[in-house]
């Protein structure tokens, strides 16, 4: 079976490294983008099985990127899981209303995140609001 690929769009290199180590250990292929623009290019170039998406990034907002990904026929079915350190009111609601699968606040519980990743890849159109 082909490896599932996860695109991590996140500007903090330590969090990227940690996710990469954890997910590679779970046998996922990993692509990384450090900003929203690079995220868009990578998602369009080789659509991944799932996108882990930060919200507050320099040079572009993760919410806007999710909106654009959901507009393009090439990327609209890719499940998106938001990972954010932001505590803005209504952010969870706004993020999920864009068609994201789930929303995790940092620091996240990796086991819970991994269970959600597995479920989202298996059923790309569900919404897991945990």
């Amino acid at each position, binding site marked *: 079976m082909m490896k599932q690929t996860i695109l991590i769009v996140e500007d*903090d290199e*330590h*969090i990227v490294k940690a996710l990469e*180590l954890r997910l590679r250990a779970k046998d996922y292929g990993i692509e990384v983008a450090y900003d929203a623009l690079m995220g868009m290019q990578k998602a369009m170039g080789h659509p991944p099985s799932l996108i882990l998406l930060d919200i507050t990034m320099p040079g572009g907002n993760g919410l806007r990127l999710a909106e654009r990904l959901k507009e393009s026929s090439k990327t609209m079915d890719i499940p998106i899981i938001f990972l954010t350190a*932001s*505590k803005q*009111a209504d952010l969870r609601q706004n993020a999920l209303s864009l068609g994201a699968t789930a929303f995790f*606040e*940092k*620091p996240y519980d990796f086991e819970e995140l991994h269970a959600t990743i597995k479920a989202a890849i298996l059923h790309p159109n569900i919404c897991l609001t945990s």
Partner: protein
Amino acid sequence: MMATPYLQPSTRVLLVDDNEDDATITRSLLTDVPGTRFEIDWVSSYDAGLKMMQLNRHDVDLLDFRLGKRSGLDLLREVHAQADHAPIIMLTGQGNESLVAEAIRSGATDYIPKGLISSETLARAIAHAVEKAKLQKNVLDHQMQLEQANQELVRKNEEIERFYHVLAHELKTPLTAASEFVGIMLDGIAGPLNHEQREYLQIVEGSCDSLKRNINDLFDISRLETGKLNVSPKPDTLQNFLPQVVATLKPVAQDKGITLQCLIDPTIPEVLMDEQRIRQVLTNLIANAMKFTRKGGTITIKASEDSTNSKQVMMSVSDTGIGILPDHRNRIFERLYQVSNDDSPACAGLGLGLFICQELIKLHGGTISVLSAPGEGSTFFFTLLKAKSLPCVRNESERNTNNDETDNPHC
């Protein structure tokens, strides 16, 4: 003649009247008024009147209804539509009620029929008009000050919110990296660990967890204070939920030699709860109980019908710990209150946990209370509404302050 109250020592009056005889009479009426000196400027035409009134240099304008071919009412309207002006008193010929009403609607402060005019009525009307204008100006000034203060508060609030947003990002991002790398090492992804290394990393992991809880508590408080902490209660069953919450805390309890048990009445119906928030309340109450319960003790989590209110379910967390002194018990739900006495083990914390629990339960339309005696353990009770009593859920603005301990028949 009696002195007219309120009149200032000197009052500047503009008289707009095209009839010189009438103007002379009006002038003479205003001489020798006790308590003030009237300085009167007289103009006889519409245009001169307009010019003077626009300059707004007088304390009051007396305006005749007839100004040659034009009317004093037109002049009143023209001045009133423009910038600030002194209070205007219309001097009417014979009583014409509809004209008077129109003048008042158009911005006149008062009117005096020329036929009834006397030194006293004129001086009193002027005094009242000046005083009324002063009061109106004060009200407007205060209104403006309030509006400015309000705008400033809104701006400050937005600033604080932006700051919290940045603070959250800046605290949580490095904390995520720290706790993730500890997890990676504990999972053996970076290679095998010896016993000592594992033990130390577990200490770091525990520290990261308490830092995470403290940060979350701080943000909950900030949201509570800005009225932005919302809950979304949905119908849910406690029969599955409670054992799940308890299961996540069992390993910690086992490490401390404390027994955790769960007693749920299998017949209780669905309740209205925001699962994430009620999990937070229970976790907080159980963690607190563990903090004050010694090795060999028991913590019991119970859910049953509320015998005092058929629309509610009663939940409780009881421990066999050291109990709470009455002085502390009365203040335990206060924001920033911390229990610390010689009988308590060292208990770090921000003093926010129980306050947040109380606020979250209130947002669910429930109440929280405690019963305890030193040496005999403590029981924290809270209520949740049954799902069928849906319309009773209060929103935040309707929260009451029912946070005192209450006698509970369950105990």
